[in-house]
């Protein structure tokens, strides 16, 4: 029940000032710039772009600064800003095979065409503090380039197995339809794969990580292999109405994960490897991997698998993966519910009174008088 109440304006204005002061922290410490966040906190920036569902590193850096580093609050700022912008159209589907690769690894093939390229990763660091970073350095770090550059076209690993017919093919449905857009139309269940992938792409990394972990631990029954993880820059092409042909509007950094799963086959499908797909803005490997495992789990229905676990249930996953919606509903509980609570209080009091009256009445009827009446 909603009842309009007034008051609190002065308190709210004062809290805006106080939060600004808290955001700035100790003023004897230099203020961080959004360019510093963009350049030096790029993994946090990637997370905000993904969960805010808006690829713009400058805006994501501003969001992180304004939200004091709170990734979900920052994603909320991105979503809110997005609604103020006109949608100018859709891009051509990204061609991740044309990626300028900075990292590309496969856990299924050692000697794959193009090779294993570790790129920038924390995977092989010792997770020991580098106390040198507590100060600032005059000499910027520099990586030595190799004499020979990587090939610009490296085959995607599932395409290699696909050539043998052992891999579930990924081909567009008849007519290559426009994808569903959950920012425009309400989602219905069972949800198709385009709906699921869009929801997962903007879903909370922690939630998807937990679900992916549950699948691996047996609450989903898949044994995934990281067929390929690649990260780098892909050109974005857009067809302006005035021109009628595709123009290259710049590069986006993306991370792609192709997860390969064993599949024993069913009545209609021969035994083969099946795939899960993850794609994220920026360098966001954990997100892309989690997304690909959950994508595969959600494909169970199409493959005739029983949906016995949470990660296999599209309604459960899609309704709970959006952290801006989830945070809104959980955190709205801290807003005033005075009237609702008064109602509940009245109800509890009445029920207790009725119970007491019934006990007293039954005591009289059974001939046992309450003590106070003796």
């Amino acid at each position, binding site marked *: 029940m909603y009842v309009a109440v007034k008051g609190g304006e002065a308190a709210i204005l004062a809290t805006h000032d106080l939060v600004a002061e808290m955001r700035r922290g100790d003023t004897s410490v230099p203020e961080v710039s959004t360019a510093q966040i963009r350049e030096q906190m790029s993994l946090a920036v990637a997370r905000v772009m993904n969960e805010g569902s808006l690829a713009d590193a400058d805006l994501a850096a501003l969001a992180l600064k304004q939200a004091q580093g709170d990734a979900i609050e920052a994603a909320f700022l991105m979503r809110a800003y997005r609604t103020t912008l006109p949608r100018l159209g859709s891009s051509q589907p990204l061609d991740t095979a044309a990626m300028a690769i900075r990292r590309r690894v496969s856990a299924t093939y050692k000697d794959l065409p193009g090779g294993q390229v570790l790129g920038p990763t924390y995977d092989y660091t010792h997770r020991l503090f580098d106390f040198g970073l507590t100060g600032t350095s005059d000499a910027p770090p520099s990586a030595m380039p190799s004499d020979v550059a990587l090939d610009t076209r490296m085959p995607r690993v599932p395409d290699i197995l696909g050539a043998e017919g052992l891999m579930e093919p990924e081909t*567009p449905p008849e007519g290559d339809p426009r*994808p569903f857009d959950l920012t425009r139309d309400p989602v219905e269940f069972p949800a198709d794969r*385009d709906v699921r992938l869009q929801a997962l*792409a903007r879903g909370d990394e922690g939630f998807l990580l937990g679900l992916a972990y549950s699948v691996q631990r047996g609450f989903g029954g898949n044994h995934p292999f990281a067929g390929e993880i690649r990260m780098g820059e892909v050109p*974005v092409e*857009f067809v302006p109405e005035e021109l009628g042909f595709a123009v290259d509007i710049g*590069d986006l950094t993306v991370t792609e994960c192709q997860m390969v799963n064993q599949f024993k086959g069913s009545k209609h499908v021969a035994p083969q490897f099946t795939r899960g*797909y993850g794609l994220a803005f920026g360098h966001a490997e954990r997100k892309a991997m989690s997304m690909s495992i959950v994508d595969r789990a959600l494909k169970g229905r199409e493959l005739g698998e029983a949906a016995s676990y949470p990660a296999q249930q599209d309604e459960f996953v899609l309704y709970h993966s959006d952290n801006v919606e989830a945070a809104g509903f959980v955190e709205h509980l801290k807003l005033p519910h005075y009237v609702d609570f008064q109602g509940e209080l009245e109800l509890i009091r009445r029920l207790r009174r009725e119970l007491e009256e019934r006990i007293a009445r039954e005591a009289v009827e059974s001939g046992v008088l309450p003590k106070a009446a003796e």
Partner: protein
Amino acid sequence: MAVLARARKTELDEIVARLGGLPDHVVLKPAETGTVMVEARAGGTGRRFNMGEATMTRCVVRLADGTMGFAYALGTDRPKALVSAVLDALLQSSSDAGLHDDIAALARAQTEARQLALRKAAATKVDFFTLVRGHD
């Protein structure tokens, strides 16, 4: 247009300065920032899906001789979009060798930056070797 889209505003300003400022032009569509929904394909080759939006800024101009210029680029830089659109028109209508050389130099610099990133990545490529048992 791809080169202009990837250029920094300051790089374009230097080119404009060498031209002695922007030529006369009419702005047909003022620089406007919006979003483009980025599409991808499941598994890289399959069903299309909406990955999320990206900011994009566009601008359309016409030069005095009637040549139209267009700018479409990721990001929110509206001043850059105007300069890009005018340069796009000039590149079609003008035979100014200096301008074409400047853009070619910009394209080369972008290619070199990309090659350097690919060479740095190549330095992290794994060379596997197999450990052979001694008694063979």
